[in-house]
């Protein structure tokens, strides 16, 4: 067998493997979507769900599924995949598994802006999303500017990000405390993220952003993979790395910001999706569609666990936090053992 045929074989195998992984993830996401709509105080069979979705009016079911569970499911799907994609993009771009937007403080800027708009300015919908986007981009720029000094270092970026995140979080705490109806479930949404009480109108900006930005980011995936090879190689291959990077940062920050203004910063989804999907698809750069599917599956799966696995209903962020943080520790131990600096 010649080398060429070996490579050919290997490629085919990788392609088949990828196809299986993507199909499995897709199936998992669809299953979770159906479960989100079927489970609850009243259980509905799939036939009823499909009839409601096709527009039929069924007493009780139409309201419960159409107005309560469908928005919740859509929020989980959109927000989860948005966090998944943005996390994977940041991790590839900064070539560091720790550099996801929720760890380096980009999301906390958006959260602070969203909370300010909703609780203090009493806005909702598009203006909240806009404010969250602007704050997200501003905090990304701020973190980058503060961590530039001398030679660029991923570790410094992460430390600065943790600090910036702490400042924004204290602003969020302050705003929550000043709010009139300071109730605990509402506050949880802004501290660790929750799908409770999402209404249809809130999902619109998120859906629009997904429709516009997902294809654009996927289109840039090839160039992202080249950037991941390193600055020098990317330049040698004739890429304008800075332009691609700027485009990717702005588009992913928009996704994060809009999602955050809907559900709050669902803890660790952005951080987890990339590495998990990478492990499943095998060697090479992570595939962004796989990361998006993983994010959606993770968010909805954790939401289901939070809603039904225990006596009380936990918001999704508490569950993802409990799953995600041990993984972060595991990753740290692994990085430390291999002797690489974070």
């Amino acid at each position, binding site marked *: 067998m010649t080398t060429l045929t070996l490579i050919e074989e290997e490629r085919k195998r990788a392609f088949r493997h990828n196809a299986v992984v993507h199909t499995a993830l897709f199936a998992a996401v669809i299953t979770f979507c159906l479960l989100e709509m079927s489970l609850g105080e009243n259980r509905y069979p799939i036939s009823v769900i499909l009839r409601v979705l096709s527009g039929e009016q069924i007493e009780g079911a139409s309201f419960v599924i159409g107005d309560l569970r469908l928005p919740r499911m859509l929020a989980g799907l959109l927000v989860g995949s948005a966090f998944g994609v943005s996390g994977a993009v940041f991790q590839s771009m900064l070539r560091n598994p*720790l550099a996801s937007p929720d*760890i380096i403080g980009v999301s906390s800027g958006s959260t602070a802006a969203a909370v300010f708009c909703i609780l203090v300015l009493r806005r909702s919908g598009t203006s909240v999303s806009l404010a969250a986007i602007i704050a997200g981009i501003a905090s990304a720029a701020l973190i980058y500017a*503060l*961590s530039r*000094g*001398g*030679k*660029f*270092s991923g*570790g*410094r970026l*992460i*430390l*600065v990000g*943790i*600090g*910036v995140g*702490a*400042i924004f*979080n*204290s*602003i969020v*705490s*302050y705003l929550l*405390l*000043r709010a009139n109806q300071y109730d*605990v479930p509402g506050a*949880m949404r802004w501290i*660790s993220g929750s799908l409770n009480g999402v209404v249809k109108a809130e999902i619109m900006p998120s859906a629009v952003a997904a429709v516009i930005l997902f294809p654009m980011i996927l289109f840039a995936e090839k160039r992202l993979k080249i950037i991941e090879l390193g600055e020098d190689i990317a330049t040698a291959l004739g890429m304008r790395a800075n332009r691609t990077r700027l485009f990717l940062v702005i588009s992913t920050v928009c996704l994060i910001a809009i999602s955050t203004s809907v559900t709050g910063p669902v*803890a*660790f989804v952005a951080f987890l999706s990339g590495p998990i999907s990478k492990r499943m698809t095998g060697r090479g750069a992570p595939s962004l569609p796989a990361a998006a599917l993983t994010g959606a599956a993770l968010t909805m799966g954790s939401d289901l666990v939070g809603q039904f696995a*225990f*006596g*009380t209903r*936990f*918001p999704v962020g*508490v569950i993802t*936090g*409990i799953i*995600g*943080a*041990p993984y*972060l*520790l595991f990753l*740290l*131990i692994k*990085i*430390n*053992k*291999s*002797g690489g*600096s*974070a």
Partner: protein
Amino acid sequence: MTNIRTDAARNRVQPKLRRRAIIAVVCVCALCVGIVCSIVLGSRKVSFSDVSGAFFHAAPETIGEAVVQKRIVRTVFGILAGASLGMSGALMQAITRNPLADPGILGVNTGAALFVVAGIAFLGISSPYQYIALALCGSFVSAVFVYAVGSIGGKGATPIKLALAGAATSAVLSSLVSAIMLPRTAVMDAFRFWQVGGIGGTTWNNMRAMAPFLIGGATLGICSASSLNALALGDDVAAGLGVRVGRARVIGAAAGVILCGATTALAGPISFLGLLTPHLVRLAVGIDQRWVISLSAIGGAIVLIFSDVVGRLVGSPGELEAGIVTAFIGAPVLIVVAARSKAHEI
């Protein structure tokens, strides 16, 4: 010849000593100003007679006097909590030789909070002694865990490794705290301060329970200061100078953990105070641990008292927990430390 040399040496030492003494006096004055502010300022305006009455009447005669007496309690507690957190931060930074060591960043506060919340929820604890015992266990376990995770691998516990290990551990622990508290909404409101940290809502009784731990911790801390000075030169040099490195570290660490554990038991996790204070103090008095550790105590008290006053004024008519204010002013210190460090040091 000898005279000239000693004069020169003295010249180098004396101004520093004078400067340090001046700084110490300034700190004490600032603390006094803080105490006065903390008693006089707040949501409710009080008159001078209220203040003087509060000091001389055992039982308050007007609402103003009652308010002032409450403020006296929280001011004293603020001084104790701030002093122990500041000193604890200085000790931890000295022992780990790491500019980012801080009870909050190392996850010690959250560990204490988790144990106490679990104790309230599952064991039904109520006395301050039980709080303190559980908080001490929690801080000890999480401190050891974070330091162990952070020091795995080649270069030992570097700032970034410690900070990330602490952040991750804090995230796990605070998720668990939420998971324990959420189903118990009734208890939750009373213990909401566990998540932010504040110095309101304590009593003389609680402080009496805390006092022995603080005195013990502070004594250990001050006693270990000179061996920590040697430790700063590196383990080998310190051993060469006759310091028992292992013992010095254990004593210093124990003092740091006792101080912040006992404080967290009653105040909740107050973040970034232990990071911020020693950095400011080192800017003022240099690197001599004896000065850094003792002035960090005074500095911590000043910062916490003023943070509490600011929190009361900004949050009026309610109040903003001091922990939020300290995070807001303390986090920039983390950023500055990170931004100034060289790439290979992180």
